[in-house]
């Protein structure tokens, strides 16, 4: 959504610039030459989010533009773990490459750690769906006695147009 807004804003600015230059060239007899580059937008979406063995009061959700995956899990004892699986779908007409997934680990005092998936350099052709990836959240079996707490987990996955055109 941000990218679209940015694209729109910059396009408007560019149009204004070209119009100004055109106006200047008309009124002051200046010549203006330029070229237009048409770049179809690259768009990757998250798909098929699932919490393995989901319990009551747990949930997982994708926002409408499929860019944000949010989940809520409940761990009841050390050794408890949850596997959150998802796929990435390339819904654009350009080949894309996943760059990296940057995850923020919870503080070590919580006894909870997260195993984020390795996605660096994965190529996704137009229309293709990635294999299933997983985020593993574990309450360390040796961390008993931890108080009840809510732990926030964040990660972001960047992608870019494949420079080699999918080759």
């Amino acid at each position: 959504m941000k990218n679209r807004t940015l694209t729109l804003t910059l396009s408007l600015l560019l149009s204004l610039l070209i119009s100004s230059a055109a106006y200047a060239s008309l009124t002051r007899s200046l010549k203006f030459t330029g070229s237009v580059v048409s770049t179809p937008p690259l768009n990757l979406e998250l798909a098929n989010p699932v919490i393995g063995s989901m319990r009551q009061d747990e949930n997982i959700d994708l926002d409408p533009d499929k860019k944000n995956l949010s989940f809520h899990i409940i761990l009841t004892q050390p050794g408890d773990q949850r596997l959150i699986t998802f796929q990435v779908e390339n819904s654009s007409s350009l080949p894309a490459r996943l760059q990296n997934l940057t995850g923020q680990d919870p503080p070590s005092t919580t006894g909870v750690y997260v195993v984020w998936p390795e996605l660096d350099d994965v190529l996704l052709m137009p229309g293709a769906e990635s294999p299933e990836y997983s985020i593993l959240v574990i309450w360390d079996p040796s961390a008993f006695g931890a108080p009840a707490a809510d732990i926030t987990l964040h990660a972001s996955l960047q992608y870019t147009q494949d420079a080699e055109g999918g080759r």
Partner: protein
Amino acid sequence: MATTTKRKNLYIVFGVLAIFLLSAIVYAAATGTLFFNGTARLNPDLLLEIEDATITGGIDTANGESCVISGDKQTLTFTVYLEEPNTSREVTFDIRNVGKVDAQLAPLLEVDDTEALAAGLIITWPDSDLEDLIIYANTSSVAPEGPFSIVVEWPSTAPDAASLLAESDYEVTFSASIDYMQYVTP
């Protein structure tokens, strides 16, 4: 001449701006980010409660005896009546695991027996029975582990105990809370 230079500069400025804007558009269109946001709630649901507390032989309310479990069922407060030296009273209780995870007991907490000990009374706490005892989820400490007992004794060797107790000559009040942590199978 000056006008031509100005125009050239204008071209350069427009050119740089156009390149910058074009690059920004291409970059914005060719990259993106997906986000993952989650919450992991640690809900150990670890809870033990004191239950079935009483004084052996019945609570002598006429002489001020009482045996009260607190509202959160974590603390037991009792008052026993000792009529004369060489007598004792026994308070018994059980502990129930009402949580969803197994628990391991520790000795009782917040035991206030300083005054009684100074007066020469002997109090036997069930610490050795409680320490490290495992109470599994949804079970109680009833036999063979329980019930646990606290014995308050006025020994014949402390004939002046009653006069040394500030509150009342024959009534002694104590309070103790259970202490525990989650038990995980090694």
